[in-house]
Every structure is written in structure tokens, then in C-alpha cells.
């Protein structure tokens, strides 16, 4: 694609999170431009998931600001953050496993399904219109993802790779512009991660912006536009994949650290 002027979608400045005396995240800053795939990496316990939890309103931010589309969203309720356009997946897949694939996607579209309780009880025209529209949208989304043949299956019956895809699809269904992926390749074999990479590229081409936490270096190095590295809650490096791969600090954090368990 032709290089258009970069629009900043998410701007995280110096966010800090303390749990008692422990500083889990210490002045971390991240900038994500529209249409980019940005990764946050770091050894176990570095505070990556804590960053995600602050971005999505699960944890309160002790210091710093989070701007999404120019608007401050730190310490807002998860509901308002989803409405603003940020959605996430989880490290350990959290699907509504006893519901069908399409129902999972429809739940993703919950906040966009705008009829009230009484309209649904009396099956008014508004209810039928909105419900049909959302169902059609859900099926179209499933088709574009390549999961439509699984539409009627229960989520728990899906193979692992498809469960990941469904979780991402459900996040997209919220209408999010920024999708946070928490270790999408966790527990995947090389073939599955390769498929996942192709899938994330596909999403990027569709215009979604992705911020992800990942351990799988082949995935991170191949698809990221920019990488942030944090260790013990502190930012230690940022840059292009090639810069990160050769950064001595990063190599030390991964290979020379005391807490390394590899």
C-alpha cells in the first residue's frame, strides 16, 4: 500500500501500575499507528499482560495516560473502552464454550445490538430488523474469516487453531478498530503458528490495527511493524524487528537474565 500519513490510533504514555510495593509496570509508553501490527515482548513476568489489563480497564492505571483516537480512556470501565473501539483476546482462550460459533460472534456484537428488553420480549419490528442485521453481519464476518463452515458448531468442539480464530473474530465483532492479542500463538505447533501469521496478515490487509503480546519469535519478527520490549516492568527497547533482534539489552534480558528459566 502507498504510504499514507500515519494516524496515531493508540498513544500510551508512561503508564505505571503498582501492586503494593511491587511496580509491575513502570512508565511504559507505546504508540500504535492505524493499520500497524505492533508487538510487545519480554520475558515471563515482565508485565505485558498487566499493560493489556490497564488498556482494557481491568486494572486501574496509577500513573500516565492512555489516549485512543485522541481521547483519554485510562481508568474507564471496560464497557466504555469496548465502545470506544478496543477489544481483546486472552492468553488462555476464553470462548463461551457451550455456545455455538455464531452465538459467540453475536455476543461479540452485543454493544452494537441496539434494541431494548421490551422490544425483544414483544418481538417488535425494531427487534427483528436489528437481530436479522446482526445475524447477517455475523455470518459475513465468519465467511471473511473462513470459519463459516463451523457456524453451527459449539465453540468447545472447534480445533485449537479455530478456537483462536473464533476468539479474534469475536473481538472484531465488537466493532473494534484496535485488537489486542494476548499471546495468540501460545500452545501452537509451527504449522499452526504459520497459519496464525497468515491470518494476522490477512487482518492487517483488511485494515485492522493489532497490538499483540507474543513469545513466539518467528511470529513476532515476521509480522510486526514495530516491537516494544519490556523487562521487569520497565521498557528496555523499541524499534523495527531487525533492530530489536540485534539489541544487546534485549539479548541480555532473554538470555543473560537471572530469572531466565530456559
Amino acid at each position, binding site marked *: 500500500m502507498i504510504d499514507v500519513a500515519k494516524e496515531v490510533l493508540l498513544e500510551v504514555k508512561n503508564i505505571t501500575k503498582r501492586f503494593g510495593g511491587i511496580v509491575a509496570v513502570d512508565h511504559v509508553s507505546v504508540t500504535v499507528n492505524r493499520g500497524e501490527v505492533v508487538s510487545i515482548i519480554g520475558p515471563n513476568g515482565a508485565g505485558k499482560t498487566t499493560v493489556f489489563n490497564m488498556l482494557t480497564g481491568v486494572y486501574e492505571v496509577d500513573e500516565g495516560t492512555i489516549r485512543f483516537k485522541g481521547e483519554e480512556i485510562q481508568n474507564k470501565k471496560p464497557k466504555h473502552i469496548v465502545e470506544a473501539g478496543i477489544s481483546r483476546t486472552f492468553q488462555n482462550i476464553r470462548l463461551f464454550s457451550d455456545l455455538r460459533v455464531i*452465538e459467540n460472534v453475536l455476543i461479540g456484537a452485543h454493544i452494537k445490538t441496539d434494541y431494548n428488553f421490551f422490544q425483544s420480549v414483544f418481538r417488535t419490528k425494531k427487534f427483528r430488523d436489528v437481530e436479522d442485521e446482526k445475524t447477517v453481519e455475523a455470518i459475513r464476518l465468519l465467511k471473511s474469516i473462513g470459519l463459516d463452515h463451523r457456524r453451527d458448531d459449539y465453540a468447545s468442539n472447534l480445533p485449537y487453531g479455530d478456537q483462536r480464530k473464533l476468539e479474534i473474530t469475536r473481538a472484531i465483532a465488537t466493532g473494534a478498530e484496535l485488537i489486542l492479542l494476548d499471546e495468540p500463538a501460545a500452545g501452537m505447533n509451527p504449522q499452526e503458528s504459520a497459519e496464525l501469521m497468515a491470518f494476522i496478515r490477512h487482518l492487517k490487509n483488511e485494515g485492522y490495527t493489532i497490538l499483540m503480546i507474543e513469545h513466539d519469535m518467528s511470529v513476532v519478527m515476521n509480522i510486526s511493524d514495530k516491537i516494544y520490549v519490556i523487562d521487569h516492568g520497565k521498557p528496555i527497547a523499541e524499534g523495527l524487528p531487525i533492530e530489536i533482534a540485534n539489541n544487546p539489552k534485549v539479548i541480555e534480558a532473554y538470555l543473560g537474565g537471572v530469572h531466565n528459566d530456559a
Partner: protein
Amino acid sequence: MTERIKRLINKEDDCCQDTIKPGAGTLHKIEVFTDKNKFSLGLAAAALLIALPFILGDQYLLTVIVKIGAYAILAMGLNILTGYTGLVSLGHAGFVAIGAYTASLLSVRLGADFFTATLAGMVVAGLVGVVLGLPTLKVTGTYLSIITLGFGEIIKMIAMNWATVTNGTLGVKNIPKPSLFGFDMTVGNFGMYYLMLALVIITAVFCLMVVKSKTGRAFQAIRADEMASTMMGINITAYKILAFVISACICALGGSLYATVIGYIDPNTFNFDVSTLILSIVILGGMGTIRGMFVGAAILIAFPEVSRFLMEYRFVLYGVILVIMMRFRPQGILGWKSTLPYKLNKRVREEIEKTEAKETAGD
């Protein structure tokens, strides 16, 4: 490690899901059959239900059937909370009592007619439902069950000790029969049966409408995973309270019907046994299904009646049945997941076909 194991298990599922298990196959056939013939089966069921009092013609049997209907309503109420939203309540007798007392006292003392009094009972129960729903913001699981258990006992104590209003342990006597356009409904003239039938159908349709909407999906999402539901933008607090309110209103309706059928209530009518009985119906019939509530109520209400000859041993048998159920069919008698495809209505199907046609034309 666990991820790895999970993946292995899922892989296995993936390779084997095309082979149909024998049990699942039969179920699928039954479901396809009922779905195909739903119109004629529905008609047959309607005819049977309308003709039932004339076929039986027996006061005692009809009273039992009306009681089954009342309990089916109570179970449908609890099912919204426990079956769909996943919050186990051990104190639903409290809501039944609120409905029954409010409606009975209004009709006995102020001469209100059954329908107005019942509506008032539902409103009061709904408000109390909000109050009981509030602690659910903080507690989950077993702790919530204990709070509801306490709630049931508190309501019983209030009924017992607030004698100026509730008449204390003496209870409320001579609860009038419902009357519609001057027609008094009793079990004898079948009026009570048809009233029960109408209320059961209204409740079932209401539950179905709630469940098959974004509200029902939000309830089930909360049951499956609260954290993930929050991240979908679902207001967990609001939906949990809504589940409590709906559940309370339906149980109040059932309570009011029960009171007018029996004609007499006292605080012990609504003891802990009633709460467990309602919960047993929900579990036995199949949590999270509406069909299960009828079967559960029919079995658990009819069983003590048909097994009267066993004297007090029937309660032993009752326990044995529940234990066997839990061992061999924990999902409940009718608690299966549908094997039929997700239902799309005509408009949705046409819309999808249209886009597909466009895509192939584009290629």
C-alpha cells in the same frame, strides 16, 4: 503444559467429530423429527391440554396437575437465574412467599382481584430482586448461594413475625378464587386448570423471547465466562440484577397461583424444602432448557403422590433417584444441546444468498 494437553484433546475431538456417537444419532433423529412435525405435534399437544380436564374429570388429579403447572412456573423462574445466568439460588421460596403473601393479603384484606393482586406481588418481588441482586456484584458461586439461603429464611421470619400484616404463624385463610368476568375459577369447574395453562404458556413464551435475544445471550455469556463477557462490553452487574428481577417476578406469579389453588398459606408453606424442590426440578429437568422444566415438575410433584403407598420410605427413594440422576445424567433428563443447525429466518437466508450470488458474479 496445560495448553499442550488441551490442544491434544481438542485435536482428538477434531478428528472424531464426524463419527456419530450412537446416542447422539438417535437424539439427532428425534430432534429432526420433532422439528419437521412441530406444527402437527404442537396441535396434538394443544388438543390434549385443552381436553385434559374432560378426560380426567377427577378433582384430585386435576389439583395435582395444577400444582405441577405452578411448580413449572417456579422452575422457569429459577431457570433464568440458575440455568441461564449460572447463579445458584437456594432461597427462591422467599420470592414465592413474597408473591403469594402480597397477592393473598391484597385480595383477602382489600378485595383486590386475582390479576391485580398477582401483578402487585410480581412488582414487590421484582423490587426485592433488585435488592438481592446487589450483593451479587461482590460475591459469586457458593457465597452467593449462602446469601440467597439466608434471604429465604429472612422472608420466612418476616412472614412469621410481622403478625399485624401477615397474620403470623396463623397464616392467611380463605384466599379467594380468581374470577374473570364474574366467572369464579375453581378446580371443580376446570377454571383453575385453564388459568394455570394460560399462565404457564405466557411464562414459557416470555422466557423463550428473553432467552432468544441479546439478553439471553448475555446471560449465557456471563454463565460461561464473566471476564470474557466484560470484555465484550456486557454490563455484568446490570444483567445479573436483571436476571434476579425476571426470576423473582416469575416466581411471584407462581406463588400467587399456588396460594389461590391451595386457598391457605402460612410461613411454613415457603420453607427451605420449597427452595430445594424448585432447584431440584431445574436440575432434574435440565438446566438452561425450558422444555426440561415441565418434565422436572411433572416427575418431582407427581412422584410423592403416586408413591404414597411407600409411606415415609418414598423420601428415601426420592433421594436415590436424584443421586442416580446426578451419576448418570448430570445435565438433566432433557438437558441436551441441540444438534440442529442454528435457526436462520427467511430474511437472513435470502440476504446471505444475495451476497453469495454477488460474490460469484464478481468472480
